[in-house]
């Protein structure tokens, strides 16, 4: 896996204050389990995303640990409460120095 990859965020750009918003975060990643062998019998080393976090105006609102059982190109769907206008920063960190960052804006009225 390369050091970074494409990611996608789907969430509303506007929301009413204190309403619940759904966020979808997908990352392009092979999620190589470390249990597979190549055709010449060598073990393919584990290469997975280890941690996903979401920060809402600097405050962490969601965190997930990833394990080898999670499939390739993992999609995470979670919710949070729209408390204020601002920026949500999404970060994926994984093996081999992998890191991907994405962000989205929200206007809360």
């Amino acid at each position, binding site marked *: 896996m390369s050091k970074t990859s*494409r990611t996608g965020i789907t969430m509303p750009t506007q929301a009413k204050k204190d309403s619940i918003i759904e966020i*979808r975060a*997908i990352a392009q990643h092979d999620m190589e389990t470390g249990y597979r062998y190549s055709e010449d019998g060598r073990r393919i080393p584990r290469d997975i995303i280890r941690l996903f976090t979401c920060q809402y105006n600097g405050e962490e609102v969601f965190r997930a640990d990833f394990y080898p059982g999670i*499939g390739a*190109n993992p*999609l995470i769907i979670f919710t949070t409460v729209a408390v204020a206008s601002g920026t949500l920063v999404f970060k994926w960190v994984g093996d081999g120095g992998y890191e991907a960052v994405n962000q989205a804006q929200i206007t809360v009225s």
Partner: protein
Amino acid sequence: MNLLVFCCRLLVVWIVLLGAKPSLALEVSKGARQSSYQLMTPENQAMQDDPNLNPALFWVMDGHSLWKEKAGKKNVSCASCHGESGQKMAGVATRFPRVQKGKLQTLEGQINQCRTSKQDASTLAYESKGLLALTTFVATQSKGLPIAIQETAQNRKDLQQGRQFFNQRMGQLNLSCAQCHQDRAGLKLGGSLIPQGHPTAYPIYRIEWQTMGSLQRRLRNCMSGVRAQQFEYGSLEMAQLELYLMWRARGMPLESPGVRP
């Protein structure tokens, strides 16, 4: 009296069977054709339809990057000839495989042909990320357009050969493509429905594979399933079988990039 009724029923059943039998041997009639999209769960259908959920879109984006990237000794990109956006490629995927300079060429084969002749670059390996990305990018330009394979004087021989492969028993299980995907389409194999085998969405993101794959990978899957010697990637046999399948699905809209379970 009872015997008479029984005999009449038997006759009816016999007539029905007689009526049904020949149609099994014929190719699936045009109206009844169905993309395997219809057999998927609503969740998987949503995954294909929603660009924010379809993982294949990553390959489309990668393909677009490769499209604009200069390569080879001639230092030209695909975009140098075919335009930045790729929109000029609309409809191209619906016309492949086709005979080019006397040789039956698949879409993947044509991309590699372009690479060697126009860019003076190395060919991309089958199922490599680069070739899948480029193929997906080109194929997606034809999304929604009907498959436009016609029988012509040039492709007639290849089409016939492809049809023969489709109907030919192979492997230790001694099964032909047609026995499952024509005669028994809609019935079950294990827990899953047998699709009609129309290649309407390739390259596909197959959830089982956890990645994109070409039609040839899918065909090799089936061949190993019936314990047959698999056709080689990029071989003429593959192209002929692909051609026949695309001809069989002519008129059906292309869904690329599809998601399959």
